[in-house]
């Protein structure tokens, strides 16, 4: 049965782990689930509180937990000089580390309407979008189309290519982070198109989710990143 009660607090007390633990002689840094800067229900009606809670507390938490486990195993394998195990762990690190990286960005890419969610970008990012895509509508149309066309699970991204100094739209599969598409790509806006990101609310109609998610995209944050990285 779907969860009916939506917790109004961003995190449940007791879920937090200590922020770092020393493991092995090198002291491996492990990770914790970041807090959301808004309540689970604050993005409604674009994204339901039910989805936000499960997405954050279950899916993202699982990536964090599994990433930490993989890192611990990696630490041991590296210490022992066990090359086969080191290589074998790479996919778990990519899946779960990527999941943690991507979702950490995603929560910052979203904001409630009363905190600027959906407000079009101004300043240099706004101009860059007009220059590269004709208009914000043009960018939105392109990203929504590419997001809808992702087969299976993945993400659609707007990024700044630092080397070529231009904005780029890309998709990645599964939890591959954007760097897998190019080392000079800095993510500005990522939209999760895994079914867990929208299914309880939009069911099979991913295009409807993509139409509505723009109402809560935090362009202020994207602009900050763009300004910082395009210096």
């Amino acid at each position, binding site marked *: 049965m779907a969860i009916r009660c939506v917790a109004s607090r961003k995190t449940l007390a007791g879920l937090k782990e200590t922020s770092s633990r020393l493991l092995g002689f090198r002291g491996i840094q492990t990770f914790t689930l970041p807090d959301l800067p808004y309540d689970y229900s604050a993005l409604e009606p674009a994204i339901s509180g039910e989805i936000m809670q*499960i997405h954050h507390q279950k899916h993202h938490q699982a990536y964090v937990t599994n990433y930490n486990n993989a890192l611990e195993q990696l630490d041991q394998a590296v210490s022992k000089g066990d090359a086969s195990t080191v290589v074998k762990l790479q996919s778990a690190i990519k899946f779960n580390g990527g999941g943690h990286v991507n979702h950490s960005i995603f929560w910052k890419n979203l904001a409630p309407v009363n905190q600027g969610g959906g407000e079009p970008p101004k300043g240099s990012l706004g101009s860059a979008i007009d220059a590269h895509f004709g208009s914000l509508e043009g960018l939105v149309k392109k990203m929504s189309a590419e997001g809808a066309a992702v087969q*299976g699970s993945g993400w659609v991204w707007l990024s700044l290519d630092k080397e070529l100094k231009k904005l780029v739209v890309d998709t990645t599969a*599964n939890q591959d982070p954007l760097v897998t598409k190019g080392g000079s790509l800095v993510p500005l806006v990522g939209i999760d198109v895994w*079914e867990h990101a929208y*299914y309880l609310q939009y069911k099979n109609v991913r295009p409807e989710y993509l139409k509505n998610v723009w109402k809560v995209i935090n362009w202020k944050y994207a602009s900050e990143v763009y300004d910082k990285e395009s210096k």
Partner: protein
Amino acid sequence: MSSFGSKRMAASSAVTAGYVLKPPPFSLDALEPHMSRQTLEFHWGKHHRAYVDNLKKQVLGTELEGKTIDHIIHTTYNNGDLLPAFNNAAQAWNHEFFWESMKPNGGGKPAGELLALLERDFTSYEKFYDEFNAAAATQFGAGWAWLAYANDKLKVVKTPNAVNPLVLGSFPLLTIDVWEHAYYLDFQNRRPDYIKTFMNNLVSWEAVSARLEAAKAASSSSA
């Protein structure tokens, strides 16, 4: 409840899916409480239907038009460099195969020759169960887990997105869909619970046995 179209299932390991959205061999509420009517309304009624409808549109006016679903799947798999129609074709096939892998009051341990073969190739039913469960649980992202038959041996395989054992050179015998849309309404993120429910309550071993017989016949006739 007698299994629907057992002769048809036995006729070939390849289902004739593609161009027709066949209803599952049970009513949409027949798998409750293990798989809800709501899930089947969306999964069969929307997702599977879309694969079939979109495939028809996609092959219209191309050299794939009029070909069998098997032909389209193999051609568009293109040795892993997937051509555009692969996703719709393979998913249309996979979903028909999935409905026919299930039945009301199914699941649990098979008997007879099938059990003997599982014990031969996995040591025990429990070991098979663990391996199938692990494959389904660890297929990252969207995909499927399978029991398949090749070179007179049973094996567990997991595949991403729309890929299936047909293109990998083995006969599919059983599958579980682990795309999130297959379980999200009933189980949300809890894929392990969904897999357990499928294994314990939904598997149609009759269908698996019929497919195994067809696979053995097909193998020996081409030897």
